[in-house]
């Protein structure tokens, strides 16, 4: 579990650091007027000695004279999620934009990297949360048995009836609501899987011997059940991750997505229908999907 947490934190760290790597806004400006951090704060032109009190546009050619005696540290890749100039809408791959730009004028390479990292992080979070909740419920209902198990089965049927698209619509695209509702509705897959295996394990000779020798159910769960369950659990996790990622992106393709500010691979795929270099972009998105599945197989090996 610590291993999964480690990878979850690592992927979360990468997502948080993406604006430092892919951004059209400078990271740090050492100006005669002071030290500025445009990535963290909005500044007006007046702060850099300009006349206007409007927000600073760092990419505009008219404002370059304000930074003639300044040191600017930019992100390694100079494009982020903001649209570039209108003349660059739906442009072909070039030296400036390796994968071209979309209908909104956004750089596709930056969009794809943001979408890959953020969507993978979301899918990993949902996988771990729903698998964890399902495992706890599955093990508990199998150990208790009787009416607990029967009610768990009824609850699973009710929960399984909730379509994911409805969960996204109900959560009104708020990420926290969506994660909560998603975990409430998707735990049943692991509860059923883990419940079946726990029942098989409870019938094995070493577990029955441990029960007869007076060991507590907590110790038996920790020593005998969890190591065996983890083995089978880990085999299922990459498929769950891949299916959640594909499901979320499929819904994004049809205009149902979570979090307005996050780019989605499904949306990028939808935009390529009108793009002159659509085939190439689709190959890159396909590569992103395969890369995320390889990542999941590596994490859950």
């Amino acid at each position, binding site marked *: 579990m610590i291993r999964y947490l480690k990878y979850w934190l690592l992927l979360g760290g990468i997502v948080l650091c993406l604006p430092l790597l892919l951004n059209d806004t400078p990271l740090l400006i050492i100006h005669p007027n002071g030290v500025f951090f445009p990535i963290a704060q909005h500044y007006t032109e007046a702060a850099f000695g300009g006349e206007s009190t409007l927000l600073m546009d760092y990419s505009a050619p008219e404002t370059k004279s304000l930074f003639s005696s300044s040191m600017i540290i930019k992100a390694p890749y100079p494009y982020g999620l903001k649209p570039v100039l209108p003349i660059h809408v739906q442009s072909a791959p070039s030296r400036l934009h390796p994968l071209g730009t979309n209908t909104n004028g956004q750089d596709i390479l930056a969009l794809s990297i943001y979408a890959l990292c953020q969507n993978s992080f979301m899918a990993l979070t949902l996988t771990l949360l729903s698998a964890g909740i399902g495992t706890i419920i599955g093990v508990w209902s199998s150990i208790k048995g009787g009416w607990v198990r029967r009610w768990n089965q009824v609850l699973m049927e009710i929960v*399984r*009836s*909730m379509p994911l698209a409805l969960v996204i*619509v109900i959560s009104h695209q708020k990420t926290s609501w969506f994660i909560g509702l998603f975990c409430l509705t998707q735990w049943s897959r692991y509860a059923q899987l883990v419940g079946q295996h726990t029942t098989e394990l409870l019938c094995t000779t070493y577990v029955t011997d441990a029960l007869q020798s007076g060991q507590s159910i907590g110790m038996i769960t920790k020593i005998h059940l969890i190591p065996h369950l983890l083995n089978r659990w880990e085999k299922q996790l990459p498929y769950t991750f891949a299916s959640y990622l594909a499901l979320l992106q*499929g819904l994004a393709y*049809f205009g149902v997505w979570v979090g307005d500010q996050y780019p989605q691979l499904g949306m990028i795929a939808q935009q390529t229908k009108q793009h002159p270099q659509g*085939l190439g972009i689709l190959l890159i998105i396909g590569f992103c*999907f395969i890369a995320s599945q390889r990542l999941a197989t590596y994490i859950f090996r």
Partner: protein
Amino acid sequence: MEKQYLYKRLLILPFIWISIAFVHALIYDLLPGSPEAWLIVDDLDYAWTSDRRYSALVILGCVLKGNLGNSLFMHKPVLDLIKAHLPLSLQLSMSAFGVTYVLGMLQGVGLYKQHRFSQYLQVFFSGYATLPSFLLFTFLFVLSMNMGVQIMAYRFPLAIVFLSIRRIAPLARLMASCLRTEGEKPYIAESRHRGVSSWRIWVFCLLRNALIPVWIKAPKQFCHLLFSACIVVEMLFSIKGYGWLSFIAIKQLDYPLILGCILTQSIIISLGYFLGEVLQLWLSPQIRRGLYD
């Protein structure tokens, strides 16, 4: 003993359906929206002018009487809409199901016999299954636009291909694994040793026993095909079936239609799972023996 288990299972189903209807009616009751547009009840005023917490019960009462109301956006009875759109989805799913099982079983036999062609095909099917349908469809769409071909003219056959190909690889793997397990059993070697002909061993021993897990999964696979897979494929190919209807209902927050679609889905899936259990008890002698023991 097995009949007792099946009766218990059958008796609990209506309770599950009523619970699903109540939970969803409660959710729609709590969701923001205009109650005046909720046309499900004749006594609409009672439902919405009385204490709000009773309206979910009123909706449930109407659902139990078979009154699912009218769709808010299509202005037609929900039951009529479901009856009009479900046959097309059934047709699509059954065609895809047939293709999947025929090709999957043939592929499984090929994998068991370790044919090189089957192994290459398995790599292709597995690779195909890793990529999402919407991506493959968009790729095909853009490619056909560049070549000047209208793929939407062949939407139904293409939808069947999309639905069936991604399910062939796991079915073939299951089939090959079952054949391998069955083939290693002593009675097969004994039969060969006694000179039983190869085709008799295949038909009466190997296939008959190895296909049991495959047939047990069939109702669940069909339900999954009808309700999960069909939604995506129908939206991609603009086939106005049940999946298209339910997705449009969710997007528009057409509450009566969503409730109707979810109830239909729950009833058919529960019956499908129940049929799977009946098949399991009927086909698997080990489970029957275990129950009697």
